[in-house]
């Protein structure tokens, strides 16, 4: 399944596979024991999840090793229900005694919780029946020296890319593999291994006493799908250098181009706004919006839970419910919510298999390339950075710090910073004029660049 770019990989993969299989067996045993203990203590229902993982990360800064970190994490979380009373506990110690103690603690806390008729496991018939292999596990048994070498190569490419690159925050290679097991008293018990690797680089450019920082990164479940170290370093440098000489803009209302890496956030806010808790509390500007037009009619968005190797792919959700593919936005119209079983019951709906979140949100391109989008915008703001948390899900009010480029005639004129972009998400979604073909795969939300019709830029 894997490529052979890294000669050591084949042998190490086998070794890790053995480890992981035994990890899954151990985790399954602990989860089963937790469920049995809960039953013994009188719980009418219970669920438990356990995970264990290990990894390595190496950071090189100014051509010297800065940190070498070995990661090893594990934990078990248990939730018990006494009819409709709920308690939960977790422990980082997977020793049988520590697990039993956590279950006891959850049971004792449940006695103080109020009767909540909606509390309980997801329905038994919704449990995943088969567990597809989603190609999530490509362990990388990287020797520390090899990790350091890759980080060194990455940073060196950034430092060498331009004379104005004068300093660095370093480059980091991280690799992590582990396993997760979930079980509940419906008899569901399943687990799977997964891995994730990343290489990132942040460098500083300086000119005339001003400094600018920027970064680039690559992340993947499979080491051979990482972008090359040199390309990441060079891209970080290009991004930092082009910010030099930034100025403020005058306050204006203009179109704004969100490049793919930032456009993801627009759809992240959307997921938050159609999530169960916010819908139930009506603490979202998209309350009661099902089957209504909430985006421009050219926008189509789907959840695709089973993309092989996808960063948010999962065979089942945090309650054991089978995940699926489904449309969320169809020609601008909202066709689904993001629900786990609890808020689904409170809303009189069915779970959508989203306990724990969305499993790959895919935004269809409207066919334009990135260059088409820039040309189509003609005059406006290309964003390169967003800052702060200025998004109010209750009202949709949106106001964030920004940096970017002023664009005239579809060409980048000069860098800008110390400005804000503001609007209301409900309006911004309807003003999406195009979604580019330049899809960014580095996250659970996959979208190309997004052109938004008109937003308020505050500056001078």
């Amino acid at each position, binding site marked *: 399944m894997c490529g052979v770019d890294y000669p050591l990989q084949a042998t190490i993969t086998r070794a890790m596979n053995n480890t992981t299989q035994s990890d899954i067996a151990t985790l399954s045993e602990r989860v089963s024991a937790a469920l049995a203990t809960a039953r013994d203590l009188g719980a009418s229902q219970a669920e438990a999840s356990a995970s264990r993982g290990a990894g390595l990360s190496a950071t090189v*800064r100014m051509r*010297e090793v*800065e*940190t*070498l*970190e*070995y990661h*090893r*994490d*594990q934990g078990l979380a248990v939730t018990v229900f006494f009819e409709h009373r*709920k*308690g*939960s*506990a*977790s*422990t*980082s*110690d997977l020793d049988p005694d520590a697990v039993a103690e*956590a279950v006891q603690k959850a049971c*004792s*806390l449940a006695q*103080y*919780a109020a*009767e909540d008729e909606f*509390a309980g496991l997801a329905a038994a018939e919704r449990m995943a029946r088969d567990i597809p292999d989603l190609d999530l596990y490509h362990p990388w048994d990287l020797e*520390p020296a090899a990790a350091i070498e890759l980080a060194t190569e990455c940073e060196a490419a950034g430092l060498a890319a331009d004379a104005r690159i004068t*300093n660095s925050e370093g480059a980091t290679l991280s690799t992590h593999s582990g396993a997760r097991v979930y079980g509940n008293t419906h008899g569901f018990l399943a687990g799977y291994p997964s891995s994730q690797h990343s290489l990132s680089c942040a460098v*500083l450019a300086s000119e005339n006493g*001003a*400094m*600018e*920082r920027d970064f680039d990164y690559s992340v993947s479940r499979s080491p051979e799908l990482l972008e090359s170290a040199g390309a990441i370093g060079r891209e970080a440098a290009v991004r930092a250098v082009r*910010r030099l000489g930034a100025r403020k803009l005058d*306050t204006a209302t203009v179109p704004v181009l969100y490049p793919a890496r930032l456009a993801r956030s627009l759809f992240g806010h959307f997921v938050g706004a159609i999530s169960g808790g916010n819908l139930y*509390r*009506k*603490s979202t500007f998209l309350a009661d919006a099902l089957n209504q037009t909430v985006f421009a009619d050219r926008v189509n968005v789907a959840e695709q839970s089973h993309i092989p190797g996808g960063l948010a792919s999962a065979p089942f959700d945090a309650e054991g419910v089978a995940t699926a593919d489904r449309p969320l936005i169809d020609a601008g119209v909202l066709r689904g919510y993001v629900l786990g079983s609890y808020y689904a019951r409170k809303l009189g709906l069915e779970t959508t298999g989203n306990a724990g979140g969305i499993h790959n949100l895919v935004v269809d391109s409207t066919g334009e390339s990135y260059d088409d989008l820039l040309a189509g915008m003609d005059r406006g703001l290309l964003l390169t*950075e967003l*800052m*702060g948390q*200025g998004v*109010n899900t*209750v*009202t949709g*009010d949106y*106001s*964030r*710090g920004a*940096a970017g480029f002023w664009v005239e005639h579809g060409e980048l004129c000069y860098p800008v*910073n*110390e400005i*804000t*972009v*503001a*609007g*209301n998400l409900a309006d911004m979604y309807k003003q999406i004029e195009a979604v580019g073909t330049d899809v960014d795969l580095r996250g659970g939300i996959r979208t190309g660049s997004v052109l938004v019709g008109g937003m*308020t*830029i*505050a500056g*001078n």
Partner: protein
Amino acid sequence: MSNNTANPLQLAEERLLAPAELKDKHLDDALNALLRGGVDTAELYFQVARHESWSLEDGIVKEGSHSVERGVGVRAVAGEKTGFAYSDEIIAPALMSASQAASAIVRHGQQGAVQSWSPAGEQRLYAAFDPTASLPDSDKVALLQEVDRATRAIDPRVKQVMASIAGVQEIVLVCSSDGVYSADVRPLVRLNVAVIVEDGGRREQGYTGGGGRVAYDYFLDAERAIGYGREAVRQALVNLEAVPAPAGETVVVLGPGWPGVLLHEAIGHGLEGDFNRKGTSAFAGRMGERVASELCTVVDDGTLPERRGSLNMDDEGTPTRRTTLIENGRLVGYMQDRLNARLMGAEPTGNGRRESFAHLPLPRMTNTYMLPGPHEHDEIIASVDRGIYAHNFGGGQVDITSGKFVFSASEAYLIEGGKLGSPIRDATLIGDGPSVLQKVSMVGNNLKLDEGVGVCGKEGQSVPVGVGQPTLRVDGLTVGGTGGG
């Protein structure tokens, strides 16, 4: 109620070392395994944290949850290099294997020497008790229910109340090759209230809370918890009347207390030792220079009793202290952990903090605030012909290299002709750290610290912090609204 007079070191040894029968010899062996040639410092950091939380929605306490995290982090520092490993099992073999892994940062060399251990001078800024045991579980539930009832009773427009209470007891023991052998027992509690109000189809939220290194009965004193509910409702109702915020640069008056998040973002992060050693901060190399108006004196103080951002010692065993960062406008101090202090030839300032045993210590803030000045709050508002008054904030963020920072106003008003006008909708404010404090033209005499809800994130690690300030007038910040500017 636990024993408030417990000795932290004794308690830490009992809870962290005794269960695995770890003796001085094991600690010594581990440090020796870390101390290969070229290693300047080897350190073991033992930690156990017991955390609980209770949450209320729809008028009922739906759930209590509890977690335990325990482990040891080991670190070898050689020059600017750090080797780090950790284990969530506190047993001798795991300690040895983590030590061997961390020491791989240097490849070979002869043995260094472990200095004899001595406990550092002790501060007692808070008692060594377990806050989760400071109130019976049934009383925690009753407290949340009372908050819910009282908050709903304030106004019929209140449609939802969400309240939560949480407590943690963290016990840490630091043992290092340069002689540190110190422990701290850290209680921390918080209570939060969020409300949704509705009027004529318009919905708004209000959010508040507080806490500190105290027992839960803190929230019962003077109906403090109910006061949080009242404050959340007040904010939400103000927002029902809010008009679009202006867009563009204007005079901004910042209220006292939590708006001190301005200082945290605009200058605090930029004065952390690591960024200055590496020359990546916009403040690097500016020691002694004028970076603020003469009215500004800013300190970081980890020694305020029972405050959320306070610590008896930092996570490297250095006692916390009060560090003056800016004195009458001049940059006079950085915040240091041991690594950066050593490399910069400076003193550690008790700012070496880590989220847990599984994270490396970094220079971090504790409680960061500006000292009071000469002006009355009302006098400052009255001095502004046209601008905004920002009374409360959400969070903020900074790019320490360019110096640009943001923070979002959650309750703000127009100022017209020296008087407060309409409330304005949520807006982000953006400014430039190295220049914003130079634009401070008035400083209030009303220093206030925040209520105790701050969480600071850096390099993926979260730690509790405090902020504070008196009312400030800043003669120009960019306000990111949608209205005419």
